[in-house]
């Protein structure tokens, strides 16, 4: 067992991190990315390859089921933490490492998985009632709750394995299991909500959540699959096979429904695009409404909102923030384009700008990045012709920012960003007062009623249809709507 402890410590020295951002969590994400980079904790893009799940940002109830889905798919040893504020990041990461390295706790966590008592209250007793206990009227998942409740009615071991979206009954079962509080084993000063707990039965939330609620959960072994949907036909793993549909040439071919988002690496947090794929080509793309996260924390446009509220803000401060925002977008685009070395360069520059590094120190490196990336013939060759959006079309769609000024394909847009970054760095010491209307915010002209990212998002589905999957990712990354602006708009709409 000592040897296991040694191996655990070694593994915990460099955990792979699934960094998940929630709308409104930009500041935390930036702090987390910086910390992970300096600690050399690599980033994982799927739960299977991750040891540690870091949730950056405030609690967002509609995304909880998605967060739990990722968490449930992570193999042991694992840990889950949430950082609510940028200053928390470092201590939260330390706590996570300690949890990963301590064998006792990992074992306890495993026991939780095995005996199925992982589901329980999550420190937000009320949320369960909201998220899972009230299935939508007419929701097939809720109607289907009969067999599901059977699964839950059995002893907890089975309930854990069979944890499937069960609607009302399932949620009740989860509540019944609640009293055994495993959270006591993990005292954490930062967040009681996001803990190394297994919320295996946490499907009530999904059951009430959407069209996928009626699906059976993780394969085999569970008692809850039979007689579930689809006319009682038994389905392997509880899933139907791919259906067929016509492609652009009129051929009837298999197609898969693959969502991009809400929680995907290098993707606008919370945004969901549902794709219909034939092979790896996008046949249909539909935008889900943004998740009802009502965050009003606008990180990238803060100088503009402050100036609009009458505070004195210097042009230089806004230019600095704008340059950092575009470097952030570039980092995402380069990462999606599979150029991690330059993505890291862009993100380092972004962090230095936000840390108030003097313009004279940043400018040469910004110019070097602009040269390397902007003049890369390879990147141009790989991205040209993808996602064309002319200036006229962009304006007609209400897009105002660099995407409209670039008026072209993906390379036109990243070159626009690069040129803008260099310009902005040059004027980042300008002390003139900011006019929030005349000066463009990172994604376009700032309008609190209709933030520029809304138009960018709405332009997406039309551009994605017909694109290869990799190209589709590039298109989204090259427009890069800001999830915070979408959440802000949602909050404004909710407020009326």
């Amino acid at each position, binding site marked *: 067992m000592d040897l*296991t402890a040694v*191996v*655990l410590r070694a593994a915990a020295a460099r955990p792979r991190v699934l960094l998940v951002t929630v709308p409104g969590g930009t500041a935390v994400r930036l702090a987390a990315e910086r910390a992970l980079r300096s600690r050399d904790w690599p980033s994982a893009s*799927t*739960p*299977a390859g991750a040891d540690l799940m870091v949730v950056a940002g405030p609690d967002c109830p509609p*995304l909880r*089921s*998605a*967060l739990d*889905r990722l968490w*449930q*798919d*992570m*193999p*042991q*040893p694992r840990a889950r933490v949430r950082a609510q504020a940028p200053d928390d990041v470092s201590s939260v990461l330390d706590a996570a490492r300690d949890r990963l390295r301590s*064998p006792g706790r*990992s074992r306890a966590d*495993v026991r939780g*998985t095995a005996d199925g008592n992982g589901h329980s209250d999550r420190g937000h007793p009320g949320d369960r009632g909201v998220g899972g206990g009230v299935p939508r009227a007419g929701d097939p998942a809720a109607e289907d709750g009969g067999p599901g409740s059977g699964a839950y009615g059995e002893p907890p071991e089975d309930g854990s*394995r069979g944890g499937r979206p069960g609607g009302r009954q399932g949620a009740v079962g989860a509540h019944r299991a609640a009293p055994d509080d495993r959270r006591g084993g993990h005292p954490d000063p930062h967040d009681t909500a996001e803990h190394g707990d297994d919320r295996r039965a946490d499907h009530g939330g*999904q059951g009430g959540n*959407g069209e*996928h609620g009626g*699906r059976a*959960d*993780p*394969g*085999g*072994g*569970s008692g809850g699959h039979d007689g579930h949907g689809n006319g009682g036909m038994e389905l*392997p*793993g509880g*899933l*139907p*096979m*791919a*259906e067929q549909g016509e*492609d652009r040439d009129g051929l009837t*071919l*298999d*197609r*898969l*429904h*693959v*969502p991009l*988002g*809400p*929680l*995907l690496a290098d*993707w606008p947090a919370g945004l*969901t695009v549902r794709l219909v794929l*034939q*092979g790896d*080509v996008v046949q249909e793309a539909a935008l889900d409404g943004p998740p009802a996260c009502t965050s009003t924390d606008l990180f990238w446009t803060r100088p503009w909102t402050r100036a609009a509220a009458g505070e004195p803000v210097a042009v230089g401060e806004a230019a600095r923030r704008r340059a950092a925002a575009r470097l952030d977008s570039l980092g995402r685009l380069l990462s999606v384009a599979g150029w991690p070395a330059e993505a890291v360069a862009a993100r380092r520059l972004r962090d230095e700008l936000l840390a108030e590094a003097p313009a004279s120190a940043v400018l040469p490196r910004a110019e070097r990045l602009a040269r390397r990336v902007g003049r890369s013939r390879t990147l141009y060759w790989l991205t040209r012709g993808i996602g064309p959006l002319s200036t006229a079309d962009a304006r007609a769609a209400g897009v105002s920012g660099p995407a409209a000024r670039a008026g072209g394909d993906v390379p036109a847009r990243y070159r626009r960003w690069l040129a803008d970054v260099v310009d902005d760095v040059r004027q980042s010491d300008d002390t003139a007062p900011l006019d929030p209307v005349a000066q463009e915010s990172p994604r376009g002209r700032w309008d609190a009623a209709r933030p520029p990212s809304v138009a960018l998002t709405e332009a997406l589905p039309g551009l994605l249809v*017909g*694109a*290869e999957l990799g*190209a589709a990712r590039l298109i989204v990354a090259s427009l890069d709507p800001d999830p915070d602006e979408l959440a802000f708009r949602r909050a404004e709409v909710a407020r009326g």
Partner: protein
Amino acid sequence: MSGFTAALSLLGVAVLGVAGVYGAARAFRVSHGPLPAQPFGSGLEPAEHAVSRFHVRWYTVTMLFLAFDMEMVFMYPWTLVISVMGPSAVIEMFVFLAVLLAGVVHAWREGALRWT
């Protein structure tokens, strides 16, 4: 040690190594019960089985590839006999290759090498 013995021994070493990795993983894993998981869907549940008849739009390229690959079967022995057979071997092989390359040019002009 003959070539076959050597190849089989090397395979044995490689397989032992792989078995060692799986064995060590079995010994060290913190939990023996498998984790019931879902394929990654960005936080959403999968809608159907992913295994399906994948629409490969590059199937015309595979036809081209097959033609060249068969040609390679001739080309390996060809390398050994050039000096014995003299100029005729070279001429014949490159006329054959020219025919195939003409096919590539045709396929290219027809757009078979682009699929998105």
